[in-house]
């Protein structure tokens, strides 16, 4: 009996969560403004309650999916009784309504955790942080309840079966990609709340940066993994072996990542040196605003994209209003309350401060570049100045040099000291790294391919420069210790986080450079017993047959692959699937992954004579792209767990509390 009213329970739970979010935002904010401890105390229990009720709603929707309750419109449109159980669970967020619910669940989750973790914060600060998070929750819960209710029913004509989940989304990459991405987007809301709370309370000191840093690192790490997974998913699931398309939706996730990266660095300066305060706050606001704007662009249908969800103008309008209110209000608060520059902290043009400022400048330029490229066609069109399409050439022409310049400074940054560094010392420490990086970068393409290649040299030199200067810094840090092991162990987790983060960038650059310069791609016609050679591998089709999967029919080819003259052989099985419920065909790529190369076989169309068009690709170092992303994220995670943020907190905060 209870199972039949689950959707209604879920709907009701969402309404209760909304009411709790209203209390969570109004009372603590008013309490902080009027100094009423009782009102402020509502924040944390309400945040917990709100989370539990959104969780209940989410669980109800999941249960409807698991039990194939096709009376729920959302389930009927996005699931099917033939769908394997794990895709039924992930289908919950494979559509607009469910993904906004997941988003709200995460927002409530971050708010709940922030409430528990930050109980040592000054009372008014915590009240403001939770109040602002509550306001954002109110916006999103209203959005769900008013425009995107996932619990709507198909009554009285209940469909016998569902329309199935889009086959593109039936994949492990998609099970984890959106949740990671949302965790990142939503995580920045906590940082945003900290920034606004600090502005409201006039407490823009080193302490707030100390509280905000772990949250920023955590959100950034999630976003990094999310973007890397998205790229990986596009690589093997969309079926044509690219890994970044400068698609508006990809750009929407890259924008907050770029400002988030800038934020991580500027928070370091603000904490250590007390400078760049206003700038840091502005970055925190910008990062969250860009997350929201990305959501708007994707869901409103203003931009067309592969990722576009079914769009509905009322939804677009709602998110736009939400976006406008959030961003405008926070920028007004910023304009009113940004700290007056009382005493400028002095630093030399060659110092870590200056280098981090340059890093921020470059990252913001990159953000602007991507933003402009994404919006420019729209703007021109609206002004009636003609229609253009901005494609990879624009982005690559600007983004590649910006990355190289950023990396140049990235090598110097960790070696430089705060306030002032002597140029001589820097040169003495790094000339060798620079020389070796350039030399190896120039030599490798010659040795590897017998032909010099400017792009490979540029990419490899950049990556080597980062790696070598980091090694040099590590070496300096440990060589004065009695043993290297002891020296290494004394380094803080935050430092290791930096090392991994930067190393990750280097690894990604190697991957991007090599795969874009040395990938081999051939389109061939194949039938049984036909053999072709691509990049030193022999591909022979041995078999071609039909098979039936859980919810699809497939043409499967078996390709035997042999490298050069070696005797080791292996098989690859590309497929062309036809999904039964939607009648949608899909290319299931056969991949042979490796640390140094991927082999990639995709089946195209059947040709008149019974043979098949096949695309065979050799992708050297392509794994490095995502490996680098994972390293960066791991760096972010390590930095979260640095003991400085836990140990020193009570001591500092009691001081703050007394003050």
């Amino acid at each position, binding site marked *: 009996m209870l199972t039949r009213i689950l959707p209604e329970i879920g709907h009701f739970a969402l309404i209760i969560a909304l009411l709790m979010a209203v209390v969570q935002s109004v009372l603590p904010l008013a309490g902080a403004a009027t100094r009423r401890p009782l009102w402020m105390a509502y924040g944390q229990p309400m945040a917990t309650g709100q989370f539990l009720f959104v969780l209940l709603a989410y669980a109800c929707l999941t249960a409807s999916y698991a039990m194939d309750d096709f009376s729920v419109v959302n389930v009927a449109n996005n699931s099917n009784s033939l769908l394997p159980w794990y895709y039924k669970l992930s289908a919950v967020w494979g559509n607009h309504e469910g993904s906004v619910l997941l988003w709200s669940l995460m927002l409530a989750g971050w708010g709940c955790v922030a409430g528990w973790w930050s109980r040592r914060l000054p009372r008014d600060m915590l009240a403001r942080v939770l109040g602002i998070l509550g306001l954002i929750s109110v916006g999103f819960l209203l959005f769900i309840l008013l425009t995107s209710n996932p619990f709507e029913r198909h009554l009285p004509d209940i469909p016998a079966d569902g329309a199935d989940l889009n086959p*593109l989304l039936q994949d492990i990459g998609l099970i984890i990609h959106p949740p990671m991405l949302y965790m990142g987007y939503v995580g920045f809301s906590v940082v945003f709340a900290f920034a606004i709370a600090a502005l409201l309370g006039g407490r823009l000191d080193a302490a707030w940066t100390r509280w905000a840093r772990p949250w920023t690192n955590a959100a950034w790490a999630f976003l990094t993994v999310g973007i890397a997974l998205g790229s990986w998913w596009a690589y093997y699931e*969309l*079926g*044509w072996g*690219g890994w970044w*398309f400068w*698609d508006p939706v990809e750009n929407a996730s890259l924008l907050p990542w770029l400002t988030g990266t800038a934020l991580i660095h500027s928070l370091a300066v603000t904490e250590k040196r007390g400078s760049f305060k206003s700038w840091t706050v*502005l970055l925190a606001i910008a990062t969250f*605003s860009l997350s929201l704007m990305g959501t*708007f662009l994707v869901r*409103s249908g*203003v931009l*067309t*994209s*592969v990722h*576009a969800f079914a769009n509905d*103008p009322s939804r*677009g*309008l709602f998110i*736009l209003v939400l*976006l*406008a209110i959030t*961003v*405008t209000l926070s*920028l*007004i608060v*910023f*304009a009113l309350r*940004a700290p*007056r*520059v009382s005493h400028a902290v002095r630093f030399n043009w060659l110092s870590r401060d200056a280098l981090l400022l340059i890093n921020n400048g470059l990252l913001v330029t990159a953000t602007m570049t991507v933003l402009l490229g994404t919006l420019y*066609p*729209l*703007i021109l*069109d*609206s002004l009636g100045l*003609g*229609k253009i*399409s901005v*494609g*990879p050439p624009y982005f690559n022409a600007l983004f590649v040099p910006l990355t190289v310049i950023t990396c140049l400074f990235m090598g110097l940054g960790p070696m430089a000291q705060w306030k002032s560094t002597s140029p001589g010392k820097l040169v003495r420490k790094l000339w060798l790294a620079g020389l070796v990086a350039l030399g190896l970068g120039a030599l490798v393409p010659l040795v590897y391919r017998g032909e010099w290649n400017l792009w490979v040299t540029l990419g490899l030199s950049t990556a080597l420069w980062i790696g070598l200067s980091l090694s040099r810094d590590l070496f300096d840090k440990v060589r004065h210790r009695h043993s290297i092991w002891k020296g290494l162990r004394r380094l803080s987790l935050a430092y290791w986080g930096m090392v991994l983060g930067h190393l990750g960038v280097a690894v990604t650059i190697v991957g991007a450079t090599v795969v874009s310069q040395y990938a081999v791609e051939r*389109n061939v*016609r194949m039938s049984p017993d036909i053999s072709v050679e691509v990049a030193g591998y022999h591909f022979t089709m041995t078999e071609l047959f039909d098979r039936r999967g859980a919810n699809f029919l497939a043409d499967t080819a078996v390709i035997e692959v042999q490298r050069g003259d070696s005797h080791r052989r292996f098989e690859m099985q590309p497929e062309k699937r036809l999904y039964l419920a*939607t*009648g*949608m*065909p899909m290319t299931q790529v056969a991949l042979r992954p490796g640390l140094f190369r991927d082999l990639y076989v*995709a089946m*195209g*169309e059947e040709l008149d004579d019974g043979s098949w*068009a*096949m*695309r065979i690709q050799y992708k050297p170092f392509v794994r490095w792209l995502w490996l680098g992303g994972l390293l960066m994220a791991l760096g972010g995670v390590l930095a979260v767990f640095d003991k400085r943020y836990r140990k020193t907190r009570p001591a500092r905060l009691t001081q703050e509390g007394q003050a």
Partner: protein
Amino acid sequence: MKRRWLLFLLPVAFLGLALFFFERLSQDPADRDSALMARDFPAFEATTLADENQRVDQSLLKGQLTLVNVWGEWCAACRQEMPQLLDLADRGIRLVGVNYRDTRENGLAFLNEFGDPFAANIFDPEGDLGFELGVIGAPETFVVDAQGIIRYHHKGYVSPEDVRNRLLPEVEKWR
């Protein structure tokens, strides 16, 4: 800070952007097309994708109802809509492609891999014809009637539902 008022330019600038988004949002896609609707397909002269010596012009689209699909090898959504286009071709509808901002080699490889539903492909490497057609980005699909008049404009990816609910009814209407 002396120039604090300058900081207020930030929210103002953002509101400008939001207004711009609002304007885009309130534009009905059908309105945006009104300039082209019921007009002649723009005059053009180009070569075909398959043969650089074969010249074609707007007369290619006369005499029979044609779906004109703007695509490119570089375009992600184009690959996904190929099955739907093949399906339309199987239903006996004539399709003509506009190979938009692409190279001959890539375009032909694309057709080889994903199938070729097109009776012919107009090669448009510089995007001149696309410009005339008001193409914002591939893929876009036009229904052109037997007199060479544009009757319907579909922007973006053609899903199997779009085939059923939009393109087929339009084709029936103007045939």
